């Protein structure tokens, strides 16, 4: 059972929340928005500033606080996507080089194989961004943040089976849509 935490009114409580959640929120935003890194960082920053401004309206425990931050982040990402569509900028979503470098940091592949696999990750990222927002969010929570299905179901107020089915179908869709060489 989670004990209710003190409110986030004071700077110290909020600072603690920030320290505990900034990487989680950053990765959540990254997965939903798709990149580039600079925009993801701007949105992460905006999420915490917006939460700070709205903290008086929040009450709940640590888990509620995380869900609250997710909601703020998701809304900001939706706004950003609207702006992106308005400006017809559809090509800016991509995995940054540092993230790809980390994936291959311990790899002992030949340069040719590594280049091919980097291309696979780039394709996957593009396909992920083409999924409907709710499906993409489930995959981000499940794989990029490592949440269990039951936690995702709790967070989205859905049945566990339903979440499992959606995740399975999304994976199938990614495989089906994978471009043939």
């Amino acid at each position, binding site marked *: 059972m989670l004990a209710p935490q003190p409110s986030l009114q004071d700077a110290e409580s909020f600072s603690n929340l920030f320290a505990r959640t900034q990487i989680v929120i950053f990765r959540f935003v990254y997965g939903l928005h798709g990149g580039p890194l600079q925009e993801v*960082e701007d949105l992460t920053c905006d999420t915490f500033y917006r939460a700070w401004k709205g903290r008086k309206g929040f009450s709940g425990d640590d*888990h509620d606080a*995380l869900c609250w931050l997710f909601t703020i982040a998701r809304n900001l990402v939706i706004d950003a996507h609207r702006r992106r569509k308005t400006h017809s900028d559809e090509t800016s979503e991509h995995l940054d080089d540092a993230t790809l470098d980390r994936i291959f940091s311990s790899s002992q592949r030949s340069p040719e194989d590594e280049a091919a696999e980097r291309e696979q990750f780039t394709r996957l990222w593009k396909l992920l961004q083409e999924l409907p927002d709710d499906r993409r969010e489930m995959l981000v929570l499940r*794989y990029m943040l490592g949440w269990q299905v039951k936690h995702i179901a709790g967070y989205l107020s859905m049945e566990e089976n339903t979440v499992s089915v959606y995740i399975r179908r999304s994976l199938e869709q990614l495989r089906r849509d994978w471009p043939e060489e």
Partner: protein
Amino acid sequence: MEKTPLTEVPDESQIEAMLSEIKPMPSARLESMLRDAPWRKSVPAGRALTWKPTRKLAWGLAGFVLILLFLSVLLIPSVRGIARQIIYNYLFAPSNQLEVQVTLASPADLYNFSDPANFTLSVQESQQEAGFSLKQLTSLPEGLRFIGSRFDQKYYSVTMLYEGMDSQLFLTQRPQGNGSDVFGIGSDAEVKLVRIGESQGEYVTGGWIAVATQPIAPQSTPWSTVNIQATWDNSLPQATLRWQAGGYIYELRSLGEGGLSESELINLANGLK
């Protein structure tokens, strides 16, 4: 660990594995954007170091505290025990068993602390984030190369990682007074006092090994905490040297079978600039 080669059109399990590998990290830019955030303004990290009392008041206070401390150590056994712990930078645990609590929100960040992927900053970037001047190794032992550094907001510390074929070397530095100034060690650990320049340092071998993790309850959420039991092992191939100088705490930790000896660590500590 070598990955299974990806086929041209990966199957679902390969897609799952690929998604799990995507762990982006923010750049130093995000930290600089949030450095002056309003929730950080009331708890400035260097506050303890910037207070400058007048010389007369400082000497008076210091004298009073010293006399009080001397009398307490002399007359009260429990204070003598505490004084011993303060003199020793390391804090002995009551036993060789330890239980720590972690959250489930991002367990990989905890377990993979020593993962080179977590050391993405250059020394200059870390210095910019930490806001204090960083010391660096002036000579690098053969076989070790600099991987990167990281800034830990919680302790206001910067850790640099150097890696060789079968060992890692961590250099951590932070201002005194941020977070806990002690490093818990097992009750059986042997601390050796050594000289680092003008300061006294402490050298210990061994470390904590996680032996059991509490089962995760069905109703737990990513924000729930779990307990991890650890046991102290003197034979773990890990050597740690800690010392304090000029208001900062330094730590050199060598990890791995091919790690550095006591004298090598002391030489590196003496050469920090």
